[in-house]
């Protein structure tokens, strides 16, 4: 294998691929990136066995071939070369020589045949979707995914295609976030329900933050593929049944409160400082035209703040985990936020008047 390429053409794609590679792994080859040169196309692949990222770029090709080299070292070397530098890559026996100007290095390689490839059996034809749209679908719900929960299917995000809509749902059992966008076409053979694992969601968000206008999503029985420009991200799917989220969404809330998002968020930030550090409980009292937020902790410290809101129902007091409220308010885009509650034992529904497709459910807490 022999080719040359300018630093600026290879650095960003390689960094994106290297981002998938885990810092510590059991198999040495998992710290490597697979380089395959065919014609003038160089494809670079990184994997952690759950998520795989491939980037393809054009290079000045001399001799085709394939090998794997340590990803982090290759990225570090290329990053430290001067901008615009032309870099030559030559396979020499079991080494890859990387040279530029008066700099020359030899990196160890492992055979490309040992590289663990993800089998790609695409069953469902790809659906094309705006990168911005898909990103906000993930961004507004990803915070609610569980972390290292024994209910392993909660450590991921449900993506569901139905009736021309693509919906994302995440929950950790105490709160739930849901968002949906319209697809350009309604399909009979859509992707149905799939659960993308946590790392897959995070890598999708990372790739989408730097994507062209349109991306493609396709799924097989065991994988989801996201194609964006020169990149293809493949993530395994979680094999499990996601809980019936429709049952969790409260439908009998009759008390509606409209509050200024920033005012509410700041009042929660301030009062949360003196909440119990372990349980993070906050008491919210709904009164006519007003909500009162109060906290206290075992050191007998307390804080309270009231803020004006649009509400004219009966007085009601509900306890919440303040962190769950803060998480929702951090992703709400509008300047206002709508809360719908029923009583102290029922979940609260939070909606964003400027992103009407999104909704958030938070379970109450006994104080």
């Amino acid at each position: 294998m022999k080719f040359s390429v300018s630093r600026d053409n290879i650095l960003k794609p390689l960094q994106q691929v290297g981002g998938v590679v885990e810092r510590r792994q059991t198999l040495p080859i998992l710290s490597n990136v697979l380089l395959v040169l065919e014609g003038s196309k160089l494809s670079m692949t990184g994997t952690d066995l759950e998520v795989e990222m491939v980037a393809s770029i054009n290079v000045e090709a001399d001799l085709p071939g394939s090998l794997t080299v340590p990803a982090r070292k290759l990225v570090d070397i290329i990053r430290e070369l001067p901008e615009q530098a032309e870099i030559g890559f030559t396979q020499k026996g079991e080494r890859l020589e990387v040279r530029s100007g008066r700099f020359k290095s030899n990196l160890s390689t492992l055979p490309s045949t040992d590289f663990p490839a993800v089998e790609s059996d695409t069953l469902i034809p790809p659906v094309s979707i705006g990168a911005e749209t898909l990103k906000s679908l993930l961004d507004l719900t990803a915070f609610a995914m569980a972390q290292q929960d024994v209910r392993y299917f909660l450590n991921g995000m449900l993506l569901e295609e139905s009736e021309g809509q693509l919906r994302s749902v995440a929950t950790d059992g105490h709160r739930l976030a849901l968002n949906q966008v319209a697809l350009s076409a309604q399909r009979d053979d859509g992707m149905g329900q799939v659960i993308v694992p946590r790392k897959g969601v995070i890598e999708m968000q990372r790739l989408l933050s730097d994507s062209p206008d349109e991306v493609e999503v396709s799924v097989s029985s065991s994988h989801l593929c996201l194609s964006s420009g020169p990149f293809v991200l493949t993530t395994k799917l979680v094999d499990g049944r996601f809980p019936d989220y429709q049952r969790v969404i409260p439908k009998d809330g009759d008390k509606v409160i409209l509050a200024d998002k920033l005012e509410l968020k700041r009042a929660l930030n301030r009062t949360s400082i003196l909440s119990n550090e372990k349980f993070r409980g906050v008491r919210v009292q709904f009164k006519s035209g007003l909500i009162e937020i109060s906290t206290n902790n075992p050191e007998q410290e307390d804080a309270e703040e009231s803020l004006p809101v649009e509400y004219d129902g009966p007085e009601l007091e509900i306890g919440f985990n303040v962190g769950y409220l803060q998480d929702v308010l951090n992703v709400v885009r509008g300047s206002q936020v709508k809360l719908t509650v029923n009583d102290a034992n029922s979940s609260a529904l939070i909606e964003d008047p400027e992103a009407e497709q999104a909704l958030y459910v938070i379970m109450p807490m006994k104080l």
Partner: protein
Amino acid sequence: MKFDVEKSALIEPLQRVVNVLERRQTLPILSHVLIECSESGIVLVGTDQEIELSARIPIDSVDVSGVGAVTVPGRKLLDIVRHLPEGVVISCEAEADRFVLRSQRFESQLATLPANEFPWIDLAVVANDPIKASGKALKTLLSKTMFAMAQQDVRYFFNGMLFEFEAGLLRCVATNGQRLAIAEAALEGAPAGSRPILPRKGVTELARLLDSDAEEVEVGLDRFVSKLIDAEYPDYTKAIPSSSDQSFSCSRNDLKDALVRTAVLSNEVYKNVRLSLSTGQLEIFTNNPQQEQAIEQISVDYTKEPLEIGFNIHFLIEALSVMSGDSVRVELTNPSSPCKLQDPGDPSAQFIISPMVL
């Protein structure tokens, strides 16, 4: 105790004082800041028993209606103040064993501990009159040398910085036994012959303090107090190579960039690099147990006999990173003697690095 103060006047001094507090401590009062309220304003004090920082809010930016002193949880107080809107007035009042903070529609009560239990550093032994130093000059001295201090070395005096006062001069010295950084600056009224060693945390906190205000500081321990390391600093001058006949100059950035690149493939444990000098050229070579290697040549003005010498590559990179001039002068003697790095345009700072046997 009762006072009203604007958020903008309170937040900065409070932030600096809270910075000194350790996140985990054995005594509850060490997580508290002392608030002293008098007719001349407010003094905030934080300590970790090794260093102590006092910050003053002058009376013209605070409205005092009751004097007194109390300690309150520092980090919680800072968090609350930080999350209040910009420009608001904050009312504080100590009632019995509570500290009440109000602002607009927000009200909170914080736990207190009595001010007389605050663990002041005993300043009874301060002998010298305060010395005034330019904050900028002091900051430069620290930034050029602090990287070379040891960390958790059994030779505990290396876990700090020597402040060597000579007539009209302050010299800062830091070493971990393998590399040494020296920087000096003119200082009027320095108590000649005094050689205090400031502990590592004192040095880093002082550097942080100087980052925020670049004006004048009093080294006479008025607001920033640090315990000193009670030890005799070793005679570092023995480590400075005197005569050197084999030296070269080159672009500081070229040398640094070439080292950073080759460092990727140096041995992860020993971090060694081999420098080979020949007429007009320096070759930088690294390799590691995975049989990987990197090599780069740069042009230098070397004219003597060929010479090969090994170093810890990070000691070279760190010294080159704190230097400021365009070019660097490297003085060598032989493969078993230390090298000296200096900016040819600035003789006030020098960096000495011991060689490594390859």
